[in-house]
């Protein structure tokens, strides 16, 4: 293992074993790099250069994380955040996907909405936060609307371009084989546009996940992962902050890999549309 053969030569000689060895080496190096980073952090935290309140050690963070999980506070924070993000994201999907499809199918709808969408899209969702705070007050409504605003545009835009880019040959082929409007829509257009729609949902969720954290910091009271991070600043509870950051990262990762991965397998991959999704 100590010899570093070049990837090319190794692959040419014994494809299976050397590919495995390269992967093993990658895992080992990944573990080394994570351990190294943790060790550097731990050394910094223990060196006493910074106040322990500002730079807690890793065991402290883990203890805080577990005690918050055990007494349920972290679960509550996470549930509130998930409720807000899923509500907003759900609203964005119920508006974005149908509107995107309508815009792509009907010239008139496109003519009306496209200029508005192009004008609103470059406005970052956070800039509307103070306005929504004034209009709807502190609480769920403001946060949900910010999430909705943040995720609508990627979903809408991708659905629109997805439906527009459905191969016209497929449409004609389906038409020639006697597909009616209904069948055309469900059997050709939706599967054809699905890689784009799923990409849009992915982007939309990523943005809502950022938006919910930011909005909670400013507009939530009492519960929510963003709120707890911001609130801990007052008490210099850096351990709570870092524990919540870890939970935020974990949930985001689960959604990206597990939820959207499963969605992709159930739809795009099953319909054999993957190559288009990647291309």
């Amino acid at each position, binding site marked *: 293992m100590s010899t570093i053969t070049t990837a090319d030569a190794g692959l040419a000689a014994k494809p299976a074993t050397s590919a495995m060895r390269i992967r093993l080496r990658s895992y080992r190096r990944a573990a080394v790099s994570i351990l190294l980073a943790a060790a550097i952090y731990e050394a910094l935290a223990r060196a006493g250069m910074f106040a322990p309140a500002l730079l807690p050690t890793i065991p402290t963070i883990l203890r805080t994380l577990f005690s918050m999980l055990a007494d349920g506070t972290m679960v509550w924070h996470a549930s509130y955040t998930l409720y807000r993000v899923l509500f907003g994201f759900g609203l964005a999907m119920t508006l974005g996907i149908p509107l995107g499809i309508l815009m792509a199918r009907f010239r008139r709808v496109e003519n009306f909405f496209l200029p508005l969408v192009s004008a609103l899209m470059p406005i*970052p969702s956070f800039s509307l936060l*103070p306005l929504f705070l004034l*209009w709807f007050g502190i609480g769920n409504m403001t946060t949900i609307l910010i999430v909705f605003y943040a995720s609508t545009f990627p979903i809408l835009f991708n659905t629109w371009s997805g439906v527009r880019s459905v191969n016209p040959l497929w449409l004609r082929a389906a038409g020639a084989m006697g597909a009616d409007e209904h069948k055309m829509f469900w059997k050709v257009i939706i599967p054809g546009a699905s890689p784009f729609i799923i990409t849009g949902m992915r982007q939309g969720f990523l943005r809502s996940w950022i938006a919910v954290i930011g909005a909670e910091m400013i507009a939530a009271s009492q519960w929510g992962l963003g709120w707890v991070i911001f609130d801990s600043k007052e008490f*210099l509870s850096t351990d709570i902050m870092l524990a919540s950051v870890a939970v*935020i990262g974990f949930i985001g990762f689960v959604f990206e890999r597990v939820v959207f991965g499963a969605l992709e397998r159930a739809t795009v991959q099953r319909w054999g549309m993957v190559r288009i999704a990647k291309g």
Partner: protein
Amino acid sequence: MQDAVTIAATPAAGRGTEQLRAIWRNAFPFILVGVVWEITAWSGIFHARLFPTLEEIAVTFVQLTIDGILPHHALDTLLRLLAAFGLAAVGGMTIGMLMGRSRRMEDLLLPLVSILAPIPGLAYAPLFLLWFGLGNVSALLLVAVVSSFPVIFNTWTGVKAVKEIWVRSAQSMGADDKRMFRYVILPGALPYVLTGLRLGLAQAWRILVAVEMLASVDWGLGWLTFGAREFLNTDVMLAGIATIGMIGLALEKLVFQKIENYTVVRWGMVAE
């Protein structure tokens, strides 16, 4: 515009009416939304302080611009964006290139980058505020860190996507490391790098506004809109939001589409 107006004098001209119709088509949605807004504002369903009329917003916008307040805020936001994005671009491209060219660096850095990238950058905001204090340093560092991830990922992918055959043929023609980088790797990876820069800038722009609200900087559009809340100055807020929207649009249309045309399209790396 000039064109459209002069030709409109003779309605018989087909192209003129066509153009007029296009202008009308684009303007119509805004006019409709504007009228609905006006009616709502005038009807008094909402308090006038919370839902100002369009004239009030326009007057405020012009007034703030003449006073130099809005330009000052906008300039500070832009400078902050440029500084933070500059840091992210240089740092991100360096790390991405290293990861793309050296297997060892890739193995070392990729796990860290993959762990940190999915965490929304704003989650770190309070932490940065504690570590670096309120104000510019925190804001700059945070925006730079957050927007460097798309640059890193895309540069890395781009360098890895450079065709092996280009590298080998350059090698066999005797290119040294420097030339290889300058004439093969860099142009080959550039479409990806530019995509990364573009995504990074967009991300920086989206969170900068929020960071300005949280970090209480002295000047900045995010701070302007957030501060206006204290005094129920909804007109100031909306003027600020309009400015933010215009800058966002300008960034997209004037900065990135131009860069792409000058470099990637000219080198024939993408079909256009």
